[in-house]
């Protein structure tokens, strides 16, 4: 009896604290996800109201959607390069800004700021820079490669997106790396000093292994954000030139809402979801093996 009462009280406490967020989680995440998976097996259309079971037809349609496969590969490339450059730059910045540079707090805040600007605004700012500022510089220097906007050539437009992504996220990841650097126990660093480890050796043999948790988080963030990138894509290139920079998320949106193929769009979204999950989880599992105890 007493035990039962305690369980009830526990449940009450749980409900009081977890209830609200649980409701929100169920309503805006779980139900849409499950309902979305259900929709992939139907020919749902919000206009006609039809919702008939069609089996795996929508998934089969993905494979005849050559464009999606192309965009998907392009997304992989975008994610790969932006993850690498973001993290390398963030790590270097964090390294420099934890080695007692003058005014390091100012620099930390400065590098973090781009992350506070929303993707849409950022996209328009950089669109202006690429289309107007850089071309103006190119024209005044009469330097051919800079005279054309970065955004009008399919290859260069993807790189423009990578540049802006790096600019946006490097500062954010830098903060996580800074926290990683700061949390390395001083005694270990001192011990390595005493053992005669200096410079790069200390960095690669002591600092980096101690910072694996930071790497896991940063890679996870940059990979998952890269796959789901939409706002920057929309504002900076909007898929231009001629649809060559439409990343997977944007393609799905257009498929579902503009071509009115909800089922196929939703199925493509599920495929993207699985891909992100595989990439992110395998990355975590792989990197975790390098984690060391202090």
């Amino acid at each position, binding site marked *: 009896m007493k035990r039962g009462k305690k369980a*009830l*009280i526990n*449940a*009450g*406490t749980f*409900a*009081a604290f977890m*209830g*609200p967020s*649980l*409701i929100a989680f*169920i*309503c805006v995440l779980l*139900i849409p996800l499950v*309902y979305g998976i259900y929709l992939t097996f139907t020919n749902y259309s*919000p*206009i*006609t*109201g039809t*919702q008939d079971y069609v089996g795996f037809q929508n998934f089969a349609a993905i494979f005849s959607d050559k464009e999606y496969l192309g965009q998907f590969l392009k997304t992989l490339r975008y994610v790969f390069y932006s993850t690498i450059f973001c993290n390398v730059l963030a790590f270097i910045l964090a390294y420099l800004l934890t080695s007692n540079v003058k005014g390091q707090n100012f620099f930390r805040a400065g590098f973090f700021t781009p992350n506070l600007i929303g993707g849409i605004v950022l996209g328009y700012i950089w669109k202006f820079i690429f*289309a107007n500022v850089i*071309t103006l510089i190119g024209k005044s220097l009469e330097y051919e490669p800079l*005279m*054309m*906007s970065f*955004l*009008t050539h*399919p290859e260069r437009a993807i790189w423009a997106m990578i540049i802006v992504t790096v600019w946006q996220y490097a500062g954010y990841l830098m903060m996580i790396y800074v926290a990683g650097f700061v949390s390395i126990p001083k005694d270990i660093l001192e011990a390595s000093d005493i053992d005669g480890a200096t410079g790069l050796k200390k960095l690669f043999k002591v600092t980096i292994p101690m910072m694996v948790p930071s790497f896991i988080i940063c890679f996870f963030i940059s990979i998952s954000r890269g796959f789901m990138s939409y706002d920057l894509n929309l504002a900076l290139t909007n898929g*231009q*030139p*001629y*649809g060559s920079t439409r990343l997977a998320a944007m393609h799905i949106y*257009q498929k579902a*809402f*503009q*071509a*009115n193929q909800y089922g196929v769009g939703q199925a493509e979204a599920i495929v993207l979801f699985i891909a992100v999950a595989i990439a992110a989880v395998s990355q975590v599992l792989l990197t975790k093996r390098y984690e060391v105890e202090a």
Partner: protein
Amino acid sequence: MKRGRLVALALVFVMVAMALGACAGQGAVAEPAAPSTAPDTSKEAPASAAPTEEGAAPVKITYFNTSAEVNTMFEEMFARYHELHPNVTIELIPTGIGEGQQEKLQSLYASGNAPTFMNIDPANVIEYQDKLLDLTLESAPWLELLNDGALDAGIFDGKIYGIPWSVQGFGLLYNKRIVNEVYGGSFDPSTINTRDALRAFFEKIEAAGIPATMIHGENWSVGGHYLTLVYACHGPATTDGTGFIDALKAGTKKIEDDPIFQGFMDTFDLLKEYNYNKADPLVGDYNADALAFGQGKCATYFMGDWLWTVMVTLEGVEQDYGFLPVPWSNNPDDYGNTQVVMVLPKFQVIDKSQNTPEQQKAALDALEWMLTDPEGQQFFLDAGFCIPYKNVREDVTYNSMTTSIAEYAAKGKTINLGCFSYITGDAWTQTGNLMLQYLAGAIDRQQLAQGINEYWQSVK
């Protein structure tokens, strides 16, 4: 204490139940509700039952607007209408420029909150056809006031679903000052009726040191507008254009075998050659292009009279423009060589699937006032719209672009772009992207044609 916890627990359960209930309810209304089961909104309307001439019960209706630039115009219009008819309250559901308008309408329908009447694109009229009220000249006799031919555009499958309310046009805009200077004031736009004439015109302007033309490097312009000319110029009837598209879909015709396509692409090559944006043709900056044209940096521009809404926001731009046709052959008698496009880009429609007959009637009455009453029409005229009704006051002066379109219309020299309504969904983005590749020189004409064929064959 104990009671407090129990109360908290009970509250959370109630919250969960309510939240889940709300979610479940959303799924259930996906099926369109029959008009008879729609909620009796008369209860929600303000109880201030001011006596009206009919003594009608208060009605509350909603209006969905996709012409985002004139949300305020509609708001003012509805406020005035409420003063005249205190029993009718019209609530505006506005949309923003570049906002997901289709998505918003879809969600309104899916959640059972369909607007009573709305201003939408022709492609939407086709999509939502089953849910819209079909009108007749008996139920809405005032439709007789529409200009000749305008009503035809609103007829889909033999029934009147859409009520036209504004006219727009596109073609090759030209800067009258520049052209008159080059031609010494003796320029006659009707002489540009063949491709060779257009070439000679361009050469003359270039010789005067001014870039001759400009192409806007966006898919809606080169795909939605330029390429659509190919379909539309198959004949003055809407079915001429849609018939050609149907043949492309069925694969019985290849677009590269079509002389009109080849002709328009030859003209496109000519425009490309004299393009002001030639160095970087895909920049596609709408404001920058408008500014360049407005400041007289190039003499012509393939665009429509909606450009005026941007022009008025710019400083130091010229005011005097006219339209030229886009000739696709060297035979002046070919359809399209002496005409510019006139199109009815939006329609007023009434929903019948989720609104009561009283609401539908109220919406129809409101539309009659908006479109045919002088006071209602004045709102549109003040906003710069050209409305296709016979009883519009004759002393209005439009901007130079709209005036030019109206002149072509008065002479019957317009291209019927009716097939544009049937180019739904992603057609102009997809084929427009191919056109952009062609514009940038990334593919040749054969590849372009093949891509267009493939696109249409993939559409069901």
